[in-house]
């Protein structure tokens, strides 16, 4: 069976308000040269999906610029390809006619026309708030082999020891892998549980039925109403993913997930998977230049940087300039950030085009990094 993809680009924007003030979660820069949507799109494209709709809500200008024609993910196609699905505000089947939708279910309802018109028999839903290299082809294969109506990909986590964003959904399944219940995370839950990655494979007909049914009954919530109420006489299966998976649920999550890339094993699991590369928009940049006083250790450096100072345990995006005498430690500097001389940065996340003048000293903490918004000058 063929599958089409449906991507929610900013359903979790509220988790990192600092960085999603002017962009969708999907366009959140990550790992020196990627954006979060690259992982989602690459997972889909590597599974042979050639048609993808990206559901957007607001602030999607940089996402559109990043996606372009979809060429960099091999999605610039005559048949299928990638399509941005901006919201309908006044469509008659929008329950909140006149206003933008607010929930996942409402967003889905707004894409019913797209789903109906898909020739593909399967629809794969995914969010853009996670970093993982998932073998979606295998998920789809299991879905078909086990005659599922819905397959939900989960990641096992110890609730007490994992950094949570608070918006996780726990999936309960029996020994045969059949899903029995869903529950939204609350603080009283504990122990090792299967957390939904929000990556799901649906039989298209089943999905449409569920959506029509939700409209008829006035449901507004996906995990609390639409899904559980359509589980009777249906086959919902769980797919447990055990590779590297990072949910970007807060600024602290964002910081940690980026820093994890300094570990070669993590990089290998994400970027060195055979036949499953992570595609991204390719840009023209000169290579990075290291000056006479450059001291760089344990860092990930993108193209176009000019480094004259010291950089340790950090991630530098494209075009970052670190001038003489400057010490950058445990920090993430986004595109075109420029430092003057003798600047000291520790646990800092600086967004694009930030200018940090001579002698400035900034320090955050790994659980509470110091964030500098786009274009700010210090």
């Amino acid at each position, binding site marked *: 069976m063929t599958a089409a993809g449906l991507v929610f680009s900013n359903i979790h924007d509220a988790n990192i308000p600092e960085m999603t003030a002017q962009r969708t979660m999907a366009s959140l820069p990550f*790992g*020196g*040269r990627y954006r979060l949507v690259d992982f989602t799109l690459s997972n889909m494209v590597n599974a042979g999906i050639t048609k993808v709709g990206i559901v957007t809500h607001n602030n999607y200008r940089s996402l559109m610029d990043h996606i372009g024609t979809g060429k*960099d993910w091999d999605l610039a196609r005559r048949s299928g390809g990638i399509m941005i699905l901006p919201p309908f505000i006044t469509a008659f089947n929008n329950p909140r006619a006149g206003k933008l939708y607010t929930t996942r279910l409402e967003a889905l309802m707004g894409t019913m026309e797209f789903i109906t018109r898909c020739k593909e028999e399967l629809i794969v839903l995914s969010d853009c708030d996670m970093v993982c290299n998932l073998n979606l082809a295998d998920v789809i294969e299991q879905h078909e082999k086990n005659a599922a109506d819905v397959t939900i990909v989960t990641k096992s986590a110890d609730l007490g020891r994992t950094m949570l964003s608070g918006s996780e959904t726990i999936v309960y399944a029996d020994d045969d892998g059949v899903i029995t219940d869903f529950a939204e995370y609350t603080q009283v839950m504990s122990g090792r549980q299967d957390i939904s990655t929000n990556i799901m494979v649906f039989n298209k007909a089943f999905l449409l039925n569920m959506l029509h049914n939700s409209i008829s009954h006035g449901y507004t919530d996906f995990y609390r109403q639409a899904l559980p109420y359509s589980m009777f006489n249906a086959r919902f299966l769980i797919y447990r993913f055990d590779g590297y998976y990072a949910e970007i649920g807060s600024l602290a999550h964002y910081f940690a997930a980026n820093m994890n890339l*300094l570990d*070669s094993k993590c*990089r290998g699991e994400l*970027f060195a998977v055979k036949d499953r*590369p*992570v*595609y*991204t928009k*390719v*840009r*023209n*940049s*000169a*290579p*990075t*230049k*290291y*000056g*006479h*006083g*450059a*001291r*760089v*250790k*344990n*860092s*990930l*450096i*993108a*193209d*176009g940087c*000019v480094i004259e100072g010291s*950089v340790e345990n950090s*991630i*530098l995006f494209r075009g970052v300039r670190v001038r003489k005498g400057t010490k950058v430690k445990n920090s993430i500097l986004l595109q075109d950030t420029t430092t003057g001389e003798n600047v000291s940065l520790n646990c800092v996340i600086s967004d694009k085009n930030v200018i940090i003048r001579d002698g400035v000293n900034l320090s955050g903490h790994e659980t509470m990094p110091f964030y500098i918004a786009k274009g700010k000058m210090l």
Partner: protein
Amino acid sequence: KILPPYQGTHSADWYKGTANAIYQNMQFIEQYDADYVLILSGDHIYKMDYAKMLKYHKQKGADCTIAVLDVPLEEASRFGIMSIDDEGRIFKFEEKPKKPESTKASMGIYIFTKEKLARYLNADAADTASANDFGKNIIPAMLAAGENMFAYRFDGYWKDVGTIGSLWEANMDLLGDEPEFSLSDEKWRIYTRHSALAPQYIGDDARIENSIVSEGCEIHGRVENSVLFAGVKVLPGAVVRDSVVMSGTVVGRGATVSYSVIDTEVEIGAGASVGGSRGCKDGISVIGAGEKVEDGTTVAAGAMIPDVR
């Protein structure tokens, strides 16, 4: 569009000379119905706004405009030298003259008015004694016939990378606080093919100074005064200095690469030693694409592997 040599209706051969290459591809030029033809060499490093040269060509009513560069008198014998009057008109042209009469060297960059170009190429092709070369045949023929030939003066960095030495130098010119040639000029981007490689990872034991490192590299050793292309790996303990290392090459543990040009996908074994000290009299060492230098071997200064000299 790449135009390889093909079996034409009248003449079938590899390209005999620079002019022959254009002659065999006149169809390509005719296809675009161009009025002017700009001919360039692919082995030069420079930044030039060709639109300005074309404007000059049109202003002067030229049939042929040749871009020229001022070279030191001692070097002039290596180039095609133009003698120019006050208006910029070329009245004499000498290929590699023993006694150069000017310091204006041809850069091998030409703009022709298409009709004239076609006429001279056809005439040249019919001449079996001709080497079918622009510098040796076409230009002198046009000059002798009194065509309007003008010199367009170019000021700026220009390097012909036709020798190992100049290729190495051109790469080194990118380094330093004030490089001779800057790749990061926002106003004049250099476009090329890029691949979706991961950002470069610089390890805990790495030490990089005065070097250029490209995407996908993994550096765990020392890199000094060098240019590293995409996906180069420098393993712990390795030292790369004063060298140009092309994409995909791996420099093994504890190996040393010095004053060398290493081509793509080369494997330099652990503990191997390639090249001599910078500027040494034996010259730059060269390792060809895909070669493997076994663990512990020494490749002498100035050596070439494989030796095709």
